[in-house]
């Protein structure tokens, strides 16, 4: 315990200074949220590269939580579905159900090139299509994988902080 305490004192704050607030207009649906966004992640068939970056975005360095974003365990608690990967056949229906399970207003954010246009996996035998084909996407974050900063910026357009 003493060791951990020393470590805490030695490390101090690792969160980087917050970049300026993104200029983009917040979505009409996001205006309702008032600085609080709960996020449910859906991996619709990704290679897990985007998941690692999402993990980093919520880690101490980028600290998405300081803008009022929080990961939750159930789509019922969520305002935002963070969808990654090309949508595989087995995940198509679950993805639609997840979005349907969220209380209105609900927002879908597609993360990564695969989510936007199936990327590397386009035309694969197990791929049903991109996220855009399955559900209506409100915000998209391109990149393969996108940088954590880009994910954080996208989420900040939703929280408005």
């Amino acid at each position: 315990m003493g060791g951990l305490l020393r470590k805490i004192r030695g490390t101090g704050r690792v969160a980087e200074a917050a970049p300026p607030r993104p200029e983009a207009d917040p979505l009409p649906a996001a205006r309702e949220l008032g600085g609080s966004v709960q996020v449910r992640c859906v991996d619709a068939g990704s290679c897990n590269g985007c998941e690692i970056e999402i993990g980093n975005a919520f880690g101490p360095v980028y600290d998405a939580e300081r803008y009022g974003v929080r990961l939750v365990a159930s789509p019922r608690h969520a305002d935002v579905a963070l969808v990654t990967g090309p949508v595989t056949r087995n995940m198509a229906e679950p993805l639609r159900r997840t979005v349907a399970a969220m209380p209105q207003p609900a927002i879908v954010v597609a993360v990564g090139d695969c989510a936007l246009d199936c990327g590397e996996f386009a035309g694969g035998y197990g791929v049903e299509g991109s996220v855009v084909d399955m559900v209506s996407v409100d915000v998209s974050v391109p990149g393969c994988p996108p940088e954590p900063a880009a994910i954080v910026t996208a989420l900040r357009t939703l929280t408005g902080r």
Partner: protein
Amino acid sequence: MNAVGPALAAVGGLAVAGALAGGLAPARVRPLAAGLCTAGLGAAGVVAGAAALGGARYGVWLPGLLPLAGVRLAVDPLSGLFMAVTGAVTVAVAVYGVGYASPGGGMHGGRGPGDEDAAGSAGGRHAGSDAHEPRDALAAGGGDHGVRSRGAQAVGPVFAGAMVLVPAAGSVSTFLLLWELMALASLLLVLAEHRERPTVRSAGLWYAVMTHLGLVLLLVGLALFAARAGGESFAALRAGAGGMPAGVRGTVFVMTALAFTSKAGLAPLHAWLPRAHPEAPSHVSALMSAAMVNLGVYGLLRVGFDLLGGGPAWWWLLLMGAGALSAVYGILQAAMASDLKRLLAYSTSENLGLVVLGTGAAGLFRAAGDRPLAALALAAALLHVVNHAAFKALLFCAAGSVLRATGLRDLDRLGGLRARMPVTAGLFALGALGAVALPPGNGFVSEWLLLQALVHGLAVPGAAAAVVLPVAVAVIALSAGLAAAVFVKALGVGFFARPRSAGAGRAVESPPAMLAGMALLAACCAALALVPGALGPALTRAVRAAGVGTEKPLADGELGVHLAHTSAALHPLWVALALVAGTAAVAGLARLPARRRARRRDARLWDCGGGAPTARMAYTATSFAEPLQRVFDDVLAPEQDVDVTPVRESAYLVERVRFQRLVPDRIEHRLYRPLLAAVSGLADRARGLGGGSVHLYLGYGLFGLVAVLAALVVGW
């Protein structure tokens, strides 16, 4: 003017009339006629009890009614309390019984899971195997067995009458006579459905043996008492008790206490209870669990406090030990049970354990010389008797409604009844609220009072009190905590969610007579929960009659409960009102921030995206209880059996895994099994003595007679 005498006469008369009506009336009106008589009898019991509680004393000797000693009745407020409780339960249950025994409903009444061993109800069977359910209505049209039979209908009023009259007995012979009448009548009622289910017979056998062993103990104990006191009327016993040597008094107390605690269903003498209560027709279970077991407590109070005039601390420590054991063990077994009626039966064992714990505490305080505190503890115990009678009768009746509507007692297959039987579900919830000892339920008031008595008991000198009281508080708390888990299970798994079997899916609401009976009980529960203070003066008189203390345990004129000697007070009415007001206020405030009135949307259950969850995925009672079973592994000692069948080609590929788990009643295993084995071993050996020759048997008789005479001659 004394209303007790005429009311008691009415009880007797209506019992006889009810028996005649049940035995002779045509099948169509039989349940109605017998039920009306029983209800009237119960009402008369309430009148007699209330009059006695109001302070009327009544005594009569009818020498002509029975040969030898005659019938002697003596009624004081203590008997009044028990008569009133029994009478009130009888009224409600009789009304319920009219509906229960009437034909109709989706299925025939009283049919249970016939092909299942009730003792193994915690096993690994699961919902979804509807083929197991007994579909053929054995007794559907006929009226000649089951609850509608001539016999059952005739015995019912006798049972009720005997129960109401037991507390009125004023002499040993009258008491024993009524006690035995009650035992026999209840035995016949337990056996009412023996043709439908084979398990009934085994339950009946257990009940018969244990109740008669109890009777023998009682007979010997009271006979010893009467012989030493020089008279068999209670007045003579009371007068003679003071001069008896401590050893005799102790013997009398222990023997009668064994019999009475067995009747009250206390561990370790509870074995009959979880068998007989589930197997009896539901309204009989309600009567047994809410009224008959109370008479065990009445016996303890009458003999221990009133007739023997109290005793040394070890008597009461013994009682407290039995009560504590029974409270924890009973509720633990209830937590494991998945048979709804078995669960309720074990819960009876727990609640009576708490009552006896309070009784023991009262005795302990009295022995230490603290009369006001003893009075408080006894008042708490008596209040718990009343509360338990109300909610347990309601719960058993509701369980009977479920059984009648679905043919099921197994919680693992029930579910979804909230939508199909809304009134029954609501009433069960009300009863469960009483049983979990949480405000604003009625059970909370008496457990609070009991805790208050124990907490204030610290002032009592003596190591025993200092050691026992903290343990007693912990025991009550643990049993209350487990009771919450038990009734969340019963209500949440049995009535909420979705039906887990076709039987539960076809349930329909019960007929009005049954609902009316339950509504009566629910009204009693609500009244006891909200204005318990109204019982204050009655409790004071009953406590005084028991000879425990002349002080008032509760302050008069209060709606809530206000201890007379300390600052503690409870106002359940205000708490309930505050909760209701708070709920309404929160509901209103929560709507304010919404900018527009969003309509509540119905959505499919969140299934993790994987297709609608079926009822088989829902938690069952067995799985609900699993964590508790793991925590109390050492106490419960579950038997587990995993059977893996590999495919023929390779031992590494599994074709089938069979998992079975049974939580047996451990006391039964450890105590009764060896005992029964020893008895049957002895019987085997004794078989050599019986050669089949009548002369040999007569010879034994002669030999015995001669031996006794010889012993007399020697002067022993």
